[in-house]
Structures are given as structure tokens and as C-alpha cells.
């Protein structure tokens, strides 16, 4: 207990679970196989809208190894779920193609799949409507967008200010739907025993899964345990409870044996959410110096018929730049499509693609360097709320990035850097992501041998949460890191929020810090020694978090990229990506760098290759595998560098940290599009910027 404070935090610490992951011994949900476990396979609807008329399971049940087929006719009743996506097998309704209409259960994975394939479903189909258009009669203005943000905001008189502005930009950007596609497909293994339910689930937050299962099965939550010890990525798609734990539990109850239900990659697009397409009109009215006088960001998007999800793409425009007159709106239409949901930086990734592209267009109109344009539009207070920023170092990120990238020597003329078949260009864009903190609880125990145990139901989906929480604990306890053991990923641990919204470390960490400080006080009160029976302390940050803040709190960043465009094929390749971030105190530089790089690379995917289509006839996504939905592969990713500036912000949490899991993807696609414009002179206003979209413009 003599080590000095602040040794572990900020240190480059190897992941605690790293050895288990590189040796294959870290167990993910589907890798738990209780004795007697059966296998389940879901049967997706093949129509886009309608009702089930009949389900013929005779041939299915005749398959060797078949045990059962659950349908809405025989499945055990569950309560009505709060989230309608969990309502499969409750009735005969088919709200979208891919909706689960039956679950086959069999002795082996092969038999389960064959059983599912043999289920014959007859539907009464109804006309479906799955096409988003800007003049769709069903478009409406929602009260709120995702995250609870107001659907629409007006400040000043946008129309008059825009009409009077010497310089204007009026541009519309669109994005195709995107899929999260974490490498581990969603899976759950459910087991009933002595009136209790235990589920291994691939989830970003087992606490909510536990509460959801308890409500659906009308049980005391104390009798339900959900474990998500190792999770193979999620990127939002495992943030809300998904059908697999519910259906695995349902099937296990029906057959009286444990059941493993692993969704197949091809089933994910329709079942685990996606980023919906957006059509975004941005209007910027500026003075001759490029300083914004009027800003409108108007977003059109879709949701499903069973659930309102509104990608909050207009919200970044409420906080990014000076804008005395502003209009930010969302309009949404409910279509017969799979329900969209959270995908890494929902709202920011999409909205900043449009806003940061439009800023580049304004820079060209104003004849101002795009870095300089952003500096000129730096607001003194958050425009929408009037609140002061707790810290805002966007300008420092831009300047540091420009210096590292070598921006100063850039020739602004487009289309003049030819290297053989290739045209080269560079681009810049800003990034921002809000700081959100959610109440959390934690417990810390001290043993007489000098060891500590910290318990908190955090989830490590690859962020390094387990490691950074142990670092936080070590510092709060004034103990060496190797004396701290940490338990996470189990709903029997003290309740904590899900890993999402970049709030994990700040929220969990605050409760860990508080519990560990309380424990240290107890140890000191006991004379500095831990009695044989040990000591413990718990913490709950609900009051601390609910005390709120008078500040606008966001992380910032700046992306610089260099692209090459093949004039013959239209193929765009990113030669170099460099990001500089201001995200409070960086608690573990090793895992932080990996997060930034991972986000930036997903942004590269968004810019160049990640796009799905909703087939107007079939009603959902034809791209149901990784050969038709492309994500970045090794050869796509050359030089990616992430840096940060030291940022002190006392208005966040005891660690002084901001979330870093999502900001890397924000703005990347705009920086790449801006670089393509610089390389070719062509401004593409839709992503992904596939060769077939660019080539016709290359002349």
C-alpha cells in the first residue's frame, strides 16, 4: 500500500484476457455446451409482409435427429416484450422479410439446419412498401430522434439569413444502409435448472438481457443469470437484447434440455439491426470569409413498422460550428423493412459525413483552406444549448493533424496530381462524439493476503474494458495492478450499463473508482491492515451522475487522408489515414490506439465499400454474406495512424476520460470523399463511393 497514485492509469498495459484470446481458450457464448445440449436453427419469413396461414412441420420432424419445431401455434407463451423485435413466435404476423417464423431444434447442428429447411410455411401476403423516397407520403416529423434528442430544432431565422448570405452551399448527401457484422455472430445458450434460467449470450450488456428475459418469462430477475464474458464485437448490434436469448430460452423450456442458438451470418442483416440509409440536405449560408451565418441540416430516413428508430443525423450540426440561424430536422417513414438500430456512432457517423462534406464544399466556394474554414467557424459556446464546452480542442486537433500530415504544402487545385493511372488527393474532416455517462454500481473486496477483487457487470466487446477498469481500480486502491482481479460480464455482478454510446469506461470506471476509494478508506480505518475475513465496499454513482452538468461535453478529432483514384477503373484506395483526437485523459494508450484505428477503418469501409440495398421486390437485403457486403480487409488498410493531444477536463468523471469507441468512425467518410474531390475534381454525394459510381464522372 505504499505505491504512489496514478501509476496504472495512462500506462501502456497489455490486455488481461489477451493470453486467453491468442490461445483460443477465451470462451464466447456459443462455445458453452452444457450436457445434453440441443441445437436450434431459425426459419426466416420469405415474404415482406403478411400473415402466416399454416406451418407444415411434418417433413421437418421426420428429419433424422429432429426434436421439435416451435411456431406461434405451439411455442410457450411469453409476455409482451417492450421491444417488438423480441416478439417472434407470439402471433402470425410477418412485419418484414427475414422475421423469425419458426425455430427448429435437433440433436446436432446439421440436423437442426436440415429440420429448419424442411419447415413449410404458407403465407397470406400483403403489399409491401420498402422504398425510401424524399416525397414519401408517410414521412413524418418524429418527436424525438435516437438518443432522446428533439426531432427538430429551430434557432433564429434560417430562411432570412440564408437568403441574405453572400455565399451559399445547398447539397444533398445520401448513404446506403450499413450492417454491423461483428465477427462473432449473435448466439445464445440457454439452460433451465431448478426454476432458474442461465443464458450465455453474445451481448453488449447482460443486465438488460437478464431483466428482459425475467419480464418475458414472468420470473424474478434474481432467478435469471446472463453471462457475456467474452464478446466478439458488437458495434451496437448487441446493445439491445436480440432474439437469440429469448428463443433459446423458449426452446429450452419447450424441449426440457439446454439449447444452443447461433444465428448464421446470413441471418444477421434482417435480425440484429442496421444503420438505415439517410438522405441529408445541408444548406450553409456564409459571409465572404466563410463564417457561417445560416445552417440547415434536414434528414430523411426510415424505420420499420414495428419500432420507431430515427438515426439522429442532424444532431451534430447543433453543436459543431458557429451558426446564429439554424434549422435541424428529421423526418422518418415506417417501411416494411427489418428494424434499423444502433451502429457505431449512430447519428454522428451519418450526420458528420454530410456536414463535413458540405464544409469542404463551402471551403471551395469561399476560397478558404478547409482547415482554416473550420477554425474560423469555431463557436464560443455550444450553439444549440448556449452552454459552455467542458473542453473543446478541435482546433488543436486540426493543427496537430495538419502538422503531422504535412498539410501545409498541399496544392488546393483538384485533379492535378497524376502518377501514371492514378490521381492523388488529400482531404480533411472533423470528428465529434458526445460524452454520455450512465449510473453504474460496483463492488471492491480486499483479502488479508493483499489481493483485491473488483466486481462490476461491465462488458468487454474488444474495447479493453477489463484491463482499463483494473487500472482504474489499482490507482484508486493505491495497489499494484497485478494484485487486482476483476470480474465482469455476468448479470449476477453489481449492475452496470451496457457497452455502448462510448460511455462504458466513464460510467463503469466511475463506480469502480468510487468503490475502491471507499474500500481504501475502510482499510485505513482498520489501521491499514485487512482482517482475516476481508473487507469490502460498494458504490453506486446514480446520484453523482444525476447531479448532471452545466457543460456541453464532447470529444473531438480531425482526420487527414490521402487517396489514389484509378482513372481507368474508378477504384479508390486510401494510401494514408491520420487522425488526431482530443478525448480527455487516455487511460491505456495501447487499447485506445486500437479503438481509434478500428473506428477509422470502419469509416473507410463506410466511405468505399459498405453498402446494402433493400430489394424492392423481395423486401430485404440481398447482401447477406461477407462476399456481397464488403468490409475492409487487410489489403484495403495501409497506413492508419492515430494520435491524441493531452486534454485535461475536470468536468467529466474522476478519471477525466471521454469515450473513444466511436469517434474514430465519425468524419472519416467525409475526409475520404473530400480527398477524392481533391484528386479528381469530382464530388460524389453518396456513399459507399464504389467504382461504378465514380467511373462515369472520370471522363
Amino acid at each position, binding site marked *: 500500500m505504499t505505491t504512489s497514485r496514478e501509476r496504472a492509469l495512462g500506462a501502456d498495459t*497489455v*490486455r488481461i*484476457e*489477451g*493470453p486467453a*484470446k*491468442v*490461445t*483460443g*481458450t*477465451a*470462451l*464466447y457464448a*456459443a*462455445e458453452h*455446451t452444457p450436457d445434453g445440449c440441443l441445437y436450434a436453427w431459425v426459419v426466416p419469413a420469405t415474404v415482406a409482409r403478411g400473415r402466416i396461414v399454416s406451418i407444415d412441420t411434418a417433413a421437418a420432424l421426420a428429419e*433424422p*435427429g429432429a426434436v421439435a419445431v416451435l411456431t406461434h401455434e405451439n411455442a410457450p407463451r411469453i409476455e409482451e416484450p417492450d421491444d417488438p423485435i423480441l416478439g417472434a413466435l407470439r402471433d402470425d404476423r410477418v412485419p418484414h422479410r427475414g422475421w423469425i417464423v419458426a425455430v427448429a431444434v435437433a440433436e*446436432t*447442428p*446439421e*440436423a437442426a439446419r*436440415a429440420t429448419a429447411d424442411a419447415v413449410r410455411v404458407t403465407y397470406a401476403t400483403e403489399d409491401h412498401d420498402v422504398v425510401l423516397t424524399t416525397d414519401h407520403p408517410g414521412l413524418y416529423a418524429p418527436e424525438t430522434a435516437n438518443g432522446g434528442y428533439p426531432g427538430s430544432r429551430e434557432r433564429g431565422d434560417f430562411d432570412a439569413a440564408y437568403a441574405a448570405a453572400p455565399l451559399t452551399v445547398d447539397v444533398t448527401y445520401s448513404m446506403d444502409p450499413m450492417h454491423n*457484422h*461483428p*465477427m*462473432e*455472430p449473435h448466439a445464445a445458450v440457454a439452460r433451465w435448472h431448478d426454476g432458474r434460467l442461465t443464458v450465455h449470450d453474445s451481448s453488449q450488456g447482460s443486465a438488460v438481457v437478464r431483466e428482459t428475459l425475467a419480464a418475458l418469462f414472468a420470473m424474478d430477475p434474481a432467478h435469471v443469470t446472463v453471462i457475456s464474458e*467474452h*464478446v*466478439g*464485437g458488437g*458495434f451496437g448490434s448487441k446493445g439491445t437484447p436480440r432474439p437469440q436469448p429469448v428463443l433459446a430460452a423458449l426452446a429450452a423450456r419447450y424441449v426440457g434440455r439446454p439449447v444452443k442458438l*447461433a444465428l*448464421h*451470418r*446470413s441471418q444477421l442483416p434482417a435480425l440484429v439491426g442496421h444503420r438505415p440509409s439517410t438522405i441529408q440536405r445541408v444548406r450553409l449560408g456564409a459571409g465572404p470569409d466563410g463564417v457561417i451565418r445560416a445552417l440547415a441540416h434536414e434528414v430523411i430516413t426510415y424505420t420499420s413498422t414495428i419500432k420507431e428508430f430515427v438515426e439522429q443525423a442532424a444532431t451534430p450540426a447543433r453543436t459543431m460550428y458557429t451558426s446564429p440561424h439554424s434549422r435541424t430536422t428529421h423526418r422518418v417513414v415506417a417501411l416494411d423493412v427489418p428494424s434499423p438500430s444502433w451502429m457505431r456512432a449512430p447519428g454522428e457517423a451519418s450526420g458528420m459525413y454530410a456536414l463535413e462534406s458540405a464544409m469542404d464544399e463551402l471551403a471551395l466556394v469561399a476560397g478558404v483552406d478547409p482547415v482554416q474554414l473550420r477554425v474560423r467557424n469555431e463557436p464560443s459556446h455550444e450553439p444549440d444549448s448556449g452552454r459552455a464546452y467542458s473542453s473543446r480542442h478541435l482546433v488543436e486537433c486540426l493543427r496537430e493533424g495538419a502538422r503531422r500530415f504535412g498539410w501545409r504544402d498541399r496544392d488546393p487545385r483538384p485533379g492535378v496530381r497524376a502518377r501514371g493511372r492514378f490521381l492523388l488527393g488529400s482531404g480533411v474532416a472533423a470528428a465529434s462524439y458526445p460524452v454520455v455517462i450512465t449510473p453504474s454500481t460496483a463492488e471492491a473486496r480486499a483479502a488479508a493476503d493483499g489481493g483485491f477483487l473488483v466486481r462490476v457487470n461491465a462488458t468487454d*466487446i*474488444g*474495447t479493453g474494458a477489463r484491463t482499463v477498469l483494473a487500472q482504474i481500480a489499482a490507482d484508486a486502491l493505491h495497489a499494484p495492478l497485478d494484485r487486482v482481479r476483476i470480474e465482469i460480464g455476468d448479470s449476477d455482478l453489481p449492475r452496470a450499463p451496457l457497452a455502448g454510446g462510448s460511455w462504458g469506461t466513464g460510467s463503469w470506471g466511475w463506480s469502480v473508482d468510487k468503490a475502491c476509494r471507499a474500500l481504501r478508506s475502510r482499510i485505513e480505518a482498520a489501521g491499514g491492515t485487512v482482517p482475516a475475513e476481508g473487507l469490502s465496499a460498494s458504490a453506486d454513482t446514480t446520484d453523482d451522475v444525476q447531479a448532471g452538468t452545466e457543460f456541453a461535453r464532447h470529444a473531438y478529432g480531425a482526420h487527414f487522408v490521402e487517396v489514389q483514384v484509378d482513372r481507368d477503373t474508378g477504384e479508390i484506395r486510401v494510401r494514408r489515414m491520420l487522425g488526431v483526437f482530443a478525448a480527455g485523459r487516455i487511460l491505456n494508450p*495501447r*487499447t485506445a*490506439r*486500437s*479503438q481509434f*484505428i*478500428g473506428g*477509422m*477503418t*470502419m469509416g473507410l469501409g463506410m466511405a468505399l465499400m459498405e453498402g446494402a440495398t433493400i430489394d424492392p421486390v423481395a423486401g430485404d437485403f440481398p447482401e447477406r*454474406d*461477407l*462476399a456481397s457486403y464488403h*468490409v*475492409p*480487409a*487487410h*489489403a484495403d*488498410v495501409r497506413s*492508419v495512424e492515430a494520435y491524441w493531444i493531452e486534454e485535461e477536463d475536470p468536468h467529466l468523471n474522476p478519471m477525466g476520460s471521454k469515450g473513444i469507441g466511436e469517434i474514430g468512425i465519425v468524419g472519416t467518410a467525409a475526409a475520404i470523399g473530400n480527398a477524392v474531390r481533391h484528386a479528381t475534381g469530382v464530388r460524389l454525394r453518396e456513399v459507399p463511393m464504389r467504382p461504378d459510381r465514380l467511373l462515369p464522372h472520370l471522363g
Partner: protein
Amino acid sequence: MPHTSEVMLHVNGTPHRLTLDNRTTVLDALREHLRLTGPKKGCDHGQCGACTVLLDGRRANSCLSLAVAHSGARITTVEGLPRGTDGLHPLQQAFLDRDGFQCGYCTPGQICSALGVIAEAAGGHPSHVTAADGPPPGEPVPLTADEIRERMSGNICRCAAYPHIVEAIEDVAGAAVTS
């Protein structure tokens, strides 16, 4: 009964006689029958590389290989890599040192694939990016970062640890060349 066959698999040096459904892939034989959790199922479709193992010494997508067609095969999974005194294979250590992963789900496949890449380059196999005036046929191909990226492109990492994976492989491939 489903059609089954007796299959002999030598996994990480241990022989296993299994009665398997003819539809069972090597991946499912390893995961569901032998409870080896190193090989991962990312797509079950040959498109992600998470299931990569060494099959008779060559890297293969075990989800695309039917076990019945590989009776007698020698299979090495990430669990069976030769370990140093510290308990890890040099590639496993390099992945740890370079933070060559986040969620870890693609990692065993990346590591097995990297072993294959190092052997293939040493064995003189050219890749799409090997220069036409590079080493003569059969001579070792130097594993530059571009060579590694090209040869590893069948192993997707959605967490995008790519730059760190390449560094980890360079560390080991470079050490192999100098030793």
C-alpha cells in the same frame, strides 16, 4: 438415422476416431465434438477466415472442409501451436505485444493463417503483389508489409486490428529470416 461415417482426425498430435454425420464440417467436428474453441465460426461460408486451421500443414478454412473428406488428416489449431518456455508461440506473443486484436474472435484464425503465410513465402509461393522481377520461382519471397496484407486478406478483422496484425507478423517473419 443420418448418414454417418467413421472419421479419423489427428488433431494437435492426438488421434480421434469419431462417428460423424457426413454433413459435419471439420470446423464443427473441432468445435462441437472435440470442444476445441480456438477455430471460430464467423461466416460458415469460407468468407472470413475465422475458422482457419492448418490441414495437413496448409492453412484451410475448416468451415469449407467436410470432415468425412479428410479422414486421416493431421490438423493443427491455435491450441496446438508449438509453445516456447513462456507458454506461447512466437506469433501468439507478437499478437499480444502489438495488440493485434480487440475482441479476439478473428485472432486464432489470423494466427493460423499467418503461420501458413510465413511457410508459403518461405516456400517460394508468389502472391498477387509479388513483383514479376522478384525472387526466381522456388526462392523465398520476402514478406514485406504489402505481401502480408495481400496474403492475409482472407482473414477479416471487423475490429480492424490490421496494422497491428501486420506488425506482429513482420516481427515473427523478420526474426525467422534473420535467425
